[in-house]
C-alpha cells in the first residue's frame, strides 16, 4: 500500500507533519470502528482493518526513518535486515567511541555531564545524516537511492544509541 497516496500527500521525504496529523485525524474520524459499533459484522471487520491501515501508515510516515524506508520500498529499494558489514572505518570508529562513552556514564562521578555530551554528539551526527538522507532521496535516482539506503542503516545505529542512552538515564533516576 502507498501510504503517501492514502494520506494524499506528495511522495517525498520532506513532509509537513502538521498537515499529516490533520489528515490522519480526518481519516480516523471517518473510519474508526466506533463509527460502526452498531453496524453489521462485516462492516465492523472492514472498519477495524481500515483503521489499522491508517494507524500503520501514520506511524510509518511520522518517523523519518520509517518514512524514508517506505519511500525507498515504493521505488523498489528494500532495506535488507541482514547484517551488512560497513567499510566506512570513520563511521565504525565513531560508533566505538560513542559506545565507550555510554559505558562510562554509570561509573562516572558526574554522569549527567557525560549524558549531555553523548546526547549532543548523537544528535549532531543524526542531523548530519538526516540532511544527507533528504538530499539523496530528493534526487530520485537509483544510484542515490542506494546511497540513501546506506545512510538509513547508519542512522539506525544512532537511533539505537539514543534509545540506550534513555535507558541509562532512567536507570540513574531510579
Amino acid at each position, binding site marked *: 500500500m502507498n501510504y503517501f497516496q492514502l494520506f494524499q500527500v506528495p511522495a517525498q521525504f520532506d513532509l509537513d507533519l502538521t498537515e499529516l496529523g490533520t489528515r490522519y485525524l480526518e481519516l480516523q474520524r*471517518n473510519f474508526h470502528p466506533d463509527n460502526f*459499533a452498531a*453496524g*453489521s459484522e462485516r462492516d465492523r471487520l*472492514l472498519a477495524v482493518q481500515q483503521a489499522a491501515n491508517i494507524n500503520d501508515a501514520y506511524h510509518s510516515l511520522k518517523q523519518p526513518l520509517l518514512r524514508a524506508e517506505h519511500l525507498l520500498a515504493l521505488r523498489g529499494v528494500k532495506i535488507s535486515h541482514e547484517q551488512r558489514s560497513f567499510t566506512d572505518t570513520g563511521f565504525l570508529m565513531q560508533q566505538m567511541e560513542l559506545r565507550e562513552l555510554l559505558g562510562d556514564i554509570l561509573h562516572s562521578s558526574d554522569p549527567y555531564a557525560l549524558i549531555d555530551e553523548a546526547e549532543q554528539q548523537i544528535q549532531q551526527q543524526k542531523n548530519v545524516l538526516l540532511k544527507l538522507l533528504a538530499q539523496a532521496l530528493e534526487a530520485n535516482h537509483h544510484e542515490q537511492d542506494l546511497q540513501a539506503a546506506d545512510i538509513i542503516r547508519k542512522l539506525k545505529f544512532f537511533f539505537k544509541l539514543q534509545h540506550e542512552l534513555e535507558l541509562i538515564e532512567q536507570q540513574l533516576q531510579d
Partner: protein
Amino acid sequence: MALLQIAEPGQSAAPHQHKLAAGIDLGTTNSLVATVRSGEARTLQNAAGDDMLPSVVQYLADKVVVGKAAIAAAIADPHNSIFSVKRLMGRGYAETVAQAQQLPYLLVDQQGLVAIDTAQGVKNPVEISAEILATLADTASQTLGGELMGVVITVPAYFDDAQRQATKDAAKLAGLNVLRLLNEPTAAALAYGLDSGQEGVVAVYDLGGGTFDISILRLKRGVFEVLATGGDSALGGDDFDHAVVQWLQQQSGEAQLSHQSLRQHLQLARQIKEQLSAHDSYAFELPTANGTLALSLSREQFDSLIQPLVRKTIRACKQTLRDAGLNADEVAKVVMVGGSTRVPLVRTAVGEFFAAEPLTSIDPDKVVAIGAAIQANVLVGNKSDTDTLLLDVIPLSLGLETMGGLVEKIIPRNTIIPVARAQEFTTFKDGQTAMSLHVLQGERELVDHCRSLAKFNLTDIPPMAAGGAHIRVTFQVDADGLLSVTAQEKSSGVTASIQVKPSYGLSDDQVATMIQSSMQYAKHDMQQRLLREQQVEASRVWEAVSAAISADAHLLGSAELLDIEQALSALKVVSQGDDTAAIKAAIDKTNHITDEFAARRMDNSIRQALQGHKVDEV
C-alpha cells in the same frame, strides 16, 4: 437521494427513534449501570433504590443471589459468597493460588484456569461476572422498559488480552451485545465532558477496590488520545482494608483467623476506613475468640498503615508520565475515580505530585458508569453529530517467544489501536508442514516474566525445502484491545490454519457450551437465542446495506443494484421467519453480494474524507 424509503413499523429505521443503550462499570467491589435519558447521563437504581450493586455473588443450591443480600449472607456462608471476582478474570489457577492466601473460597483448577467450587458446582469467573452483568441489565431494562440494544462495559486500562476477553465472554454469557470495551479512565474523562472545549493533558487517577490505573490523556479538538497508561492490576482499596486487618490481628494477637472472622475483620476494616475519611479518629469494638476488644485508630495511624500503598501508586504515576514523555507540571487536570480516592491521604498525595487540585465534583464511584453511558449512547447511534474521537492505545506490549526463552516485541505498548502488524517466519526443515508460535504480553525480556496469552499451531503449510516457505503471521488488535492472529504462506497463498490454545482464556467452544448449560431448558432456549442473534444480525445487515444504497447508489451499476435489492428483500422476508440456518444463509448471501460494493464505498469515502466532505453528506 433516497432510493429506498426506510420506514418499517416497529423497526428502528426512523432516525430519531431513541435506542436503548447502557454503560456498565463492572467493578471489583461495586458495579453500576447508567444510561442517557433526555440528554443527561445518570446511574440507574434497582428495585431497592440502590445505584451501586455490590459485586458479590452467592450460590445457593437452588438459586443465585447477587448484591447486597449476598454480602449479608457472606459471614455465614463464606465458601459460596464470591467477592471481587474481577481479580480472578482471565487468571490461571497456579498464579491465583500463589497470590491469594486470603481468599476464603475453594479454588479449583479448571483446565489451567481458576474456578471456584460452590453449592451449584464449579463456577468460573466468567460465569460469576455474567451473573452481575445480567442483574445490571435487568435493572436497566426494567427501568427503561425495553431490551438493551447494546452496552459499553468498562475495564481497567491495564487489563491484558485474557482479562478483556474474559469480560467480553461474560457479557456474551449474560446475553448482552457489547458495543465496546472502554477503558475506565477514558470513561471518567468523558463523564467530566473534558472532550468538549478542553485542551491539554489530563491525568486520570483511578483507585478502585481492586485495581489502580493511571492514564495520561491528551485532548485536542475533540480528539481523545491516550498517551500512556500504567498502574497495578492487583492494588486497590481492598489492600487498605487488608492492611487494617493485619493491624487488627496484631492488636488481638490472633495468629490465624477463620474464614468467618476474616470476613468480620474485613467488614470492620472497611468501616474504619470510611469513618477516617471524615473523622480524625474512630473508636470501635473488635470481636475476638476471647471476647470483645475496645480499640481506636487515628487517621495518622491509618495513614502510616496505607502510606506504602499510596506511595506505590505515585511511583506508577511517575513511570507513566515518563512513558508519555511528560513532566508532572505539564498535566493540566487530574480526574479522581474510584471510592478509594475519598481517602484524604490519597487526595493530598495526588494533589502534591501533580501540583493541581484534583477534580472530584462527580461521585467518584459513579463517574466511570456515567462516562460509559455517554459513549454507549453515541455508539448505538442516538447521537450522530458527535465530534469526539477516542483513540486508544494497547496497554501492554505483544510479543513472540524466540530462541532461548526471549520475547521479541511485535507491537509495543502504547501503540494506537486498532493495529495490525505482520511478521515473517520460515521453515527450518525440508518438508516441514507445521510450526508453533507462543504469544506473550508484557514489558520484560524473558518469557517467564511475561504473561502467556496463547500458543498457536500453524498447520497445512505446503511442504517445501527448508527456508522455502515464507509464512506471514498477522497480529491484529481491535478497538477493544483484543488480539486475533491470521497466517498465510506467501509463495503459494495458502492460508495456514491456526489452532489457538489460549493460556488463560476460554475457547469459543467452551463459551458456547457455557451458554448452553446456563439455560434452564437448555435446548429450546438455546435455539431461541441463536434465532434471536441471527435476526438481530440480519436487521443490522439490512439497515447497513439500505443506508449504503441510499448514500452511494451511484457506485453501482443498475444490474448490481437490482441484485442487491433482491438479496435485501429476500433477507427481510427470511428474517421474519424462525429458520435460523436460512437467516444465516441469507445474511451470508447479502454480505457476499455486497463485498465489492463495500470495498468501493471504502475507497470512495477515503477520497471524500480528505476532500473535507463527510460520507453521509453525499
